[in-house]
């Protein structure tokens, strides 16, 4: 592999787009997953098991299955797609918005589960203490449950970001591989390999390995530091 290689504009664009997609997905997902995880941690509803299973589905389904259903329902013939067109919003497949939606669905368990575990670890007692100190339920949630669940938020954010960076199937199904719009690192590597551009594929693939390793090791270090503080 020649060391004089410099990444092409398309490669840089793909990296930037990947970072943008992962950031937007992480923010959207934390906002959505927080109330959902709180509900899962608190509820005794008989729907809990079913909802938890739906949240975990992206863990076991092939990403192509998710991508396929999203494509069908969001496409011009799909119910959601037709509804969006009737609102004059346009269609989501093969746009950045579509990628964000696909990533949100795909990474949902990676945000919900750490948050749910963090809320469960906080437990009922601090909320009862807050209530005895005149905090309304929303106030107690914002000022006690959220700060105490902070480690869960850090874990959820890191996992969501990293998992979104690593997605391929959903992106390919939902986004195609349009440079500047839906071409992310994973699909760009695929395109390079298809075109037999192994050098470029090596650079991007290697960068992904380094990135993923860095993410995992920082997560481990974060968790280890937390354990020490607790002890």
């Amino acid at each position, binding site marked *: 592999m020649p060391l004089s290689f410099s990444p092409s504009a398309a490669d840089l664009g793909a990296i930037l787009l990947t970072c943008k997609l992962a950031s937007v997905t992480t923010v959207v997902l934390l906002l959505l997953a927080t109330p959902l995880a709180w509900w899962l941690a608190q509820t005794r509803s008989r729907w809990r098991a079913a909802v938890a299973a739906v949240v975990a589905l992206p863990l076991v389904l092939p990403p192509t299955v998710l991508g396929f259903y999203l494509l069908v329902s969001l496409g011009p013939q799909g119910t959601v797609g037709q509804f969006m067109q009737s609102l004059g919003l346009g269609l989501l497949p093969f746009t950045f918005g579509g990628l964000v939606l696909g990533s949100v669905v795909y990474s949902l368990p990676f945000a919900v589960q750490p948050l749910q575990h963090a809320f469960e670890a906080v437990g009922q007692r*601090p909320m009862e203490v807050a209530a*005895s100190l*005149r*905090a*309304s*339920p929303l106030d107690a949630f914002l000022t*006690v449950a959220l700060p*105490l669940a*902070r480690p869960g938020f850090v874990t959820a954010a890191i996992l969501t970001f990293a998992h979104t960076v690593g997605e391929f199937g959903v992106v390919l199904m939902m986004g195609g591989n349009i440079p500047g719009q839906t071409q992310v690192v994973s699909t760009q590597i695929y395109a390079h390999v298809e075109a037999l551009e192994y050098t470029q594929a090596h650079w991007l693939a290697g960068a992904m390995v380094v990135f993923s390793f860095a993410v995992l090791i920082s997560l481990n270090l974060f968790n280890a530091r937390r354990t020490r503080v607790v002890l």
Partner: protein
Amino acid sequence: MSPGNNRIRCALPLASFDLQVDLALPQRGITAVFGASGSGKTTLLRCVAGLQRPHDALVQIAGQLWQDDQQEIFLPTWQRPLGYVFQEASLFDHLDVRGNLQYGLQRAGGTADRAALDAVIELLGLERLLPRRAHQLSGGERQRVAIARALATQPKLLLLDEPLASLDHARRQEILPWLERLRDELHIPMLYVTHAADEVARMADTLVVLKEGQVAAFGPVAEVLTRIDTPIVLGDDVSALLDGVLEERDERWKLVRARFAGGSLWLRDTGLALGQHVRLRILARDVSIATEPAQHSSIQNSIACTVRAVASDAHPSQVLVQLDCGGVLLLARITARAADALGLVVGKAVWAQVKSVALVQ
């Protein structure tokens, strides 16, 4: 019901029995809720706080109605002006001591102010702990902060759920004086759940005995403790409480004499000033009975009294004798054979020989 009344009525079916309680709390002072584990003490406290929803309850504190299920009135916990101290340390880990103390203060609105917090910090001696985090405090310090945090909201009722249960003996001795100070200086009622007889003896003004969710006894602590018709599960700790004043000091033998309504008792001199009001505890097993004053005995404290009642004890070989000394009640635990030999019948004049007196406060 007159304003200012405190009434707690609560009915709730639990796993193995029904909680059924109806109490009129005094305006101030500590009401100890005493009973074995699983007798419904904590559940009662949670119902009063609104943390648990009983089937039918009426909670009125300082004339304010917090809950009346018959009128469909229910204030959620956060709208009830109460303080709650939980059994285990319950400080917020994400805040320092100051932040914990201010949490309630900031939310209590008009009823609490900075001066109240400063007074509580002073009362519980917390000044030097303010910048610390919960995990940097000892168990006793944590409970003191938790109590201060509850008090900073200037509650109308303070609920304490075995606040000392998670502490070892030394930490307990460290925090008890602070609790006594609260009892003496605050003008609010406190409900104090405990299963420790020594805490009851030392702290309580009023005693509620819970047995399988029912009130087995309720009244002034000295009266309830010396009742022998409703046996109270104190086991070896059956005792009487006397309130007295220190009157005389024997410098040579390091003793002080405490005078109470029915006589005097000599006890170990712990350095308290003469004139000090004290509470004394006499265990039933430390009292023996003689029909005439003992001449040659190691027991120094001998009090004239009359037999008020004799009741069977847990073991058939023993009886509990209730003695009246000038209106103050004492208990003696003796063998049934001795009671028979001495001819102990109600009204008989006897001498109570007190082997040991504990100064509980």
